[in-house]
C-alpha cells in the first residue's frame, strides 16, 4: 500500500494536472465545496418558501424537496448527464455535470437544515423584528438567518462530509475526482485492487471523519454558548 502511495500520490492528489485536467483529491474537494456553496442559497430559498404563510409557496417547495429527497443521486447524475447537452446544446464535462447534480440534490437536504435552524429560534425574535416594522425580507436577512446559520453550521459541515462521499458517484460519468483517479491507477496495476481501493477508502475516511469531528466540536461549543445565552437572554 505504501509503495502505491509513493508511486501514485500525485495522481491521487491532483490527477493528470498540469498535463491533463485537474483531478484526484483536489477535484473531489473542489466539487464538494462548490456544490455545497452553490446549494446553500438554493436551500435557504427552499426553506423560506417552505416556511412561507403563502400556501402555494410552501406546498410547491415542499413537493420539490420531497421529490429530490425521494430520488437517488445517481438518477440526477444520469438525467443531467444526458439531458443537459440536449437542452443547452453544449457539451458538458463530467465534473460540471456532477456539480449540477449535487447542487440540486444537496439544496433539498440543506433546506431541511435551514428550516430546522429557523424553527429552533424563539418565536419572539421574529415578533420583535416585526414590531419594529421590518419587512419580511429584512426580518429574514438581518435577524433570523444570521442566527439560524450560526446554529446550523455543524449540520452544514456534516452535509459537506456527505457531499465529499457522494462525489465518488462521478466515476460513472468520468468526472475526474479521486475515485476516477484510483480506478485509473487500478487499471494500470491490475493486480492490486484491494490495496488501491483500500487507499481510497482511507482517504475518504480521514476527510469525512475529520469533518465530522469538526462538526462535533462546533456543536459542543455551540451548545455551551447557547446555554449561556439562553440563561441571560430570555
Amino acid at each position, binding site marked *: 500500500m505504501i509503495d502505491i502511495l509513493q508511486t501514485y500520490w500525485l495522481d491521487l492528489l491532483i490527477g493528470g494536472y498540469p498535463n491533463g485536467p485537474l483531478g484526484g483529491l483536489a477535484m473531489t474537494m473542489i466539487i464538494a465545496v462548490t456544490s455545497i456553496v452553490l446549494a446553500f442559497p438554493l436551500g435557504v430559498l427552499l426553506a423560506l418558501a417552505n416556511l412561507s404563510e403563502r400556501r402555494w409557496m410552501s406546498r410547491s417547495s415542499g413537493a420539490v424537496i420531497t421529490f429530490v429527497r425521494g430520488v437517488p443521486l445517481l438518477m440526477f447524475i444520469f438525467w443531467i448527464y444526458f439531458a443537459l447537452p440536449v437542452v443547452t446544446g453544449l457539451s458538458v464535462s463530467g465534473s460540471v455535470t456532477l456539480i449540477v447534480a449535487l447542487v440540486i440534490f444537496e439544496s433539498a437536504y440543506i433546506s431541511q437544515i435551514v428550516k430546522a435552524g429557523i424553527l429552533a429560534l*424563539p418565536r*419572539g*425574535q421574529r*415578533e*420583535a*423584528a*416585526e*414590531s*419594529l*416594522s*421590518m*419587512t419580511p425580507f*429584512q426580518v429574514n436577512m*438581518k*435577524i433570523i438567518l*444570521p*442566527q439560524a446559520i*450560526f446554529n446550523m453550521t455543524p449540520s452544514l459541515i456534516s452535509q459537506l462530509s456527505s457531499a465529499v462521499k457522494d462525489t465518488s458517484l462521478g466515476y460513472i460519468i468520468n468526472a475526474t475526482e479521486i475515485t476516477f483517479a484510483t480506478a485509473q491507477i487500478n487499471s494500470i496495476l491490475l493486480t492490486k485492487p484491494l490495496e488501491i481501493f483500500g487507499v481510497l477508502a482511507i482517504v475518504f475516511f480521514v476527510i469525512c471523519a475529520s469533518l465530522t469531528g469538526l462538526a462535533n466540536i462546533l456543536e459542543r461549543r455551540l451548545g455551551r454558548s447557547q446555554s*449561556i*445565552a439562553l440563561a*441571560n*437572554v*430570555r
Partner: protein
Amino acid sequence: MIRFEAVDKYFGDRHILKSVDGTVRKGEVVVLCGPSGSGKSTLIRTVNRLEGIDAGKVFVDEKDVGSVRDINALRSGIGFVFQSFGLFPHMTALENVMVGLRLVRRMPPAEAREVASAQLKALGLADKMALMPAALSGGQQQRVAIARAVSMRPAVMLFDEPTSALDPEMVNEVLNAIEQLADQGMTIMCVTHEMGFARRVADRIWYLRAGELVHDVDTESFFAMQAESTSGVIQQSA
C-alpha cells in the same frame, strides 16, 4: 387614539377575548391587570396585529388595524416591549437600538448611532452600549428593549408584562424607565401585575377576567373599589 370595538378572539375552542370595548386616549396611561390567562397580553398584541382578531375592530388613530394594507406603516408608530425582551442576541446593545433606525427609518449610520446612543444614555446604559445582550442583566436588557422601541419615536408604547421575567431587584429600574415615558406624555398600554406601579403611573385601570373587560375605571376609583371590597377586586376575581 386606540379603540377596541366588540373584539373577539379565539385560540381553537378557547374564547380568549369576549366582546372587548374600550378606548385609550392620547397621552393616557392604561394599565391592564387581571389573572393569568385573562387575555391581557392577547389584547395588546391585537393593537399592532401581532395577533389577528376573529370579530370586532381595533382602531389606532382611527385606522382599522385589521384592514390596514401597510401593516409596517402602522407598526412604525407603535412601540412594543415584550416580557422576554426580544433583543437580538447577535447584535450589541447599540446595534439592537440602531437596527430599526437604519432599516426602517432609513437613517444614515452616524445619525442612527447618535440617536441610539442618546436613547441608551437616557436610560442609564451609557457604559453598556458595546455589550452583547448575554452580557447584560435582565433589567439592563429590558431597558435596551425599551430604548429600541422608544428610539423609533412611536406615538404609542405597548408593554407586555415588562417586569415578569426579572429578578425583584431589577423590577424598579424598568418601571422607572416606563414612568419616565409616562411623564413625557407618551400614550401607554401596559400589562403588569405591579399594582404599586399602576397606582403611581396609570390614568386608568382595565381589569380583565376570563377574556372580559370587567372594569375600565380611573386609577383612584379602582383602588377605592379594591379597598371597599371585603376581599378586594383582584383577589375576588382571580
